[in-house]
Structure formats: C-alpha cells, structure tokens
C-alpha cells in the first residue's frame, strides 16, 4: 500500500477521543436516528455481499409475506458497531457485539439507537466497557444487545 488510498476524509475532522476514566456506569450514549431508506438497505446489503432478494427486491419480499424489503443482519451489526465507535472515537476497539433480533427494519422506517454503559472493568491490561444497546423502530425493538469495547486508559496522543 502506498499513498492515501482512500481520500474521502476531511483532514480537519475531529474525532471523539474517549478515555476509560471518562466513562461512568449509567452514562448514556448520544442517540442516533437512522433513516431506514431503500437506498440504505440495498447499499448495505451489497456492501456486506448479501444478495438475498428480501434485501433488494420489493416484489419478491412482498410475495414472501413481508411488508417491504428489510435490513439484513450484517448491517444491523455494522450500525451497532458504528454507534459505539462514533461515541468512543477511533481509539475504541470493538471486542464483541452480541445482539438479539426483533422486528424487521422495513424501508421507510426510522430506527432510534440508544445506549447506556452498564459495566466497566480492567482485565489483562485492557480497559473494557460494556454498553447495553437498543434499536427501536415504529413497530418495536429491532435490536437489543450488548457491546464490549476497549478504551485507552490515558490520552495516547499526548
């Protein structure tokens, strides 16, 4: 690899830089509202190499008994992961994403992601934080689960 292969970043962009000592149990994460558009469902299905017709073909999805095309599970994982690292910033390292799946994310809906820190601990030199996550749409919970993320103990950039 040479040079800046992907040059789509704003060089002046500031990222969060969350440290372990700045996290309290009970703390809430900034809420994210995801517009579940057809474009999002299809583009994320393709990006995750998932070509099941229920994720891109409305007629087929409806013939199979669904209201519309719906988000695939790999995307739910991706959005939950992004929800966490948007909060921690790029020094947060995902250790696990464990989700329970509920109602589908149909095209046209909005999913609201909320999260709350429910534990923090140190093990084998790692500073771990566990966040409980819920993603709810107009029909109920699309996803509930927990994510463990490792954080730096001190500001590594200083």
């Amino acid at each position, binding site marked *: *690899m040479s040079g800046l292969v*992907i040059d789509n970043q704003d060089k002046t962009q500031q990222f969060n830089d969350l440290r372990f000592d700045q996290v309290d149990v009970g703390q809430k994460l900034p809420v994210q509202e995801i517009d579940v558009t057809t474009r999002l469902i299809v583009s994320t299905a393709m*990006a995750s190499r*998932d070509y099941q017709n229920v994720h891109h073909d409305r007629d087929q999805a409806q013939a199979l008994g669904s209201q519309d095309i719906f988000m695939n599970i790999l995307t739910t994982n991706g959005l939950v992961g992004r929800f966490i690292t948007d909060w921690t910033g790029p020094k947060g390292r995902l*250790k696990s994403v464990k989700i329970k*799946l509920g*109602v589908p994310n149909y095209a046209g809906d909005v999913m609201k992601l909320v999260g709350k820190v429910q534990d923090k601990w140190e093990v084998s030199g790692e500073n771990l934080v566990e966040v409980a996550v819920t993603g709810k749409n107009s029909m109920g919970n699309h996803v509930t689960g927990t994510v463990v993320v490792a954080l730096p103990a001190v500001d590594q950039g200083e």
Partner: protein
Amino acid sequence: MENNNKELEARMAATIGVEVGPQRSWDPVNLPMICHWCQAMGDDNPMYTNLEYAEQSDQGSIIAPPTMIQALTMKGVTETPAPGSVSRTEEQPYVLDMLDEAGYVSVVAVNCDQEYFSHVKPGDDISHIMTIESISELKHTALGEGYFVTELWTFINQDNEKVAEMRFRLLKFKTPQQAQRPGSAGSQSNKPKAPQRPRPGLNRDNAFFWKGLKQGKLLIQRCTSCQTLRHPPSPMCPSCQSLDKDVVEASGKGVVHSFVNLHHPALPAFDDPNPIALVELEEGTRLVAGLINIEPEDVRIGMPVKAEITQCDDELTLALFSPVTE
C-alpha cells in the same frame, strides 16, 4: 404433549459438532471492500479508511470494521463458494435441511453474537468453519412450534489463527397455519400493524370521559348535589351518595403525585422504561396517565405537568402528561 420427532431429533443430534468448511473468501481483505462498507454504513472511523491516521495508530495499519467479519466470507452474487472452499458433503447433512423436510419450513434469526480476538487487516485471507453447537428440544413459541439451532462460525486467517467467532441462533419453526392448514397462509394482508396501546374498557359510567378526550377535552365527573368532583367515574357520589351528576372540563394542569418507571415487561407501543404517573389535577382529582417529553430518571414527585390530549391511533385518544418547563 407426545413427541413424534424422536427419529428426527436423533438425526439432528448427530450433526452437532461436525465441522463443515472451510469456506474461503473470494478476495483477501482489501480497502475497496472496506471503503464500500463504510460508505454504505455511514461510518467515518478513520481506522477503517484513513491510511495516514491508521498508520500512526497502535495498530499501525488500516483495520477492517470488526462487524464486517461475516461479510468477508460471503459467497456473493453468484452464490458459489470461493475457490479453495470445502463444501458440505452428503455425510454432513445440514440440520436446517432436515427441519425443512420435516415441515419446519419457516425460519427467523434470533441472536447474533460476535467476538473479535484480533484485528483483521488488508491482505489477510479469512475463512470460516461452521459447526452446529446446539439444538434445543421442541419448543412452543408465539410463532409456532420448532427448534432453536445455534451455529458456531469460527473465522481464521491465513496463519490459521482464530480472529473471530460468531454464534448465530435461529428458530426453525412451522406456523399454526402450516401445521394445520397448509396453503392457507398468505391470504391475509401482509401489512403488519404498528403496535397499539391497549383499549380502555368502555361502559356507560366512563363513556363520557373517553368521548371527551376525542373532542380534545379532559373531563371530570361532578356530583350535582354536593358539587364534589370524582375520578375515576362511578355511578354514585362517594360523599353524599347522590346519583345525580354532570361533568366539568379540567384545565389539564396538575402535579405528579406519585410515579413508577415500568421496566418489565417492555411493550412495543410504549417507551422502555415507561414512565407512568398518578397526576393530581389542580381541580383536586387524580388520574393515572403516561408521561411524555421527559427522561424517566428526571421524573420527580411534585413536578408540574400539563395534559397533552394525544391521538395514539385511529381509535384511541389519551391524556398524556408533559412536564411544564418554566
């Protein structure tokens, strides 16, 4: 209930722990695939796409988004396994196929648990091996009867190191329609309705209250003999035992007399947790109502609230209470 699936269950049990694969990736982990993922997900984490930033990080390189692990070994649009993959043989029957044949044709994913052991970087060559970790006994669920199957996917790199693990749990089931009347499913509308709040129990005593809400009014019953207000509605005045009554319109202003934040059960039509107050109206009567526009942990006894007459769905109008901010 008698279990007629003994033979099926024995065949399914024999598949537990049998390793199938590896299923390989079409391409080594690469930046265009990562970039496509990040753009689709709206993820601007510079560890994934900003070479300059990532090289200066503790990882010294771009990493693939950990949640992308399953995408790496997907077969893709042709549905054919990547070269070098070892496919399932006849000696490795798939439990989901067995369940299909036994009539458990519907499937719903229940859990997806991923654990990441090391970061996957451009150039890594990822494969996965799949085993059936467990199969439940026959379960009777809200969807129908069926079996919970847990698949364990182990992701390894070119050095045979385990980089991630995924437990994928699904329910393979038959709906009551499929069990009794095959072919009848699908005749009804496909549109699932948004979850609705429970309906009130209407009777001649309380009908005025619900009708009032539909007209945008919060009404209180009044004894016309002694002028005492009362709620909930009842046929007789508790103060003077008169049966004569009319109604007055409440201002909608009140205070939280008591409250509870309901955590369990979480119901889809309600917020979770669900703040519920006993509101004392300025007229003196109290009523139970949901609170809105407030975080559950911010509710306090004595806080001023006001009624927001809210049309919850086509049939139901409720007085919900919102904090008064002054």
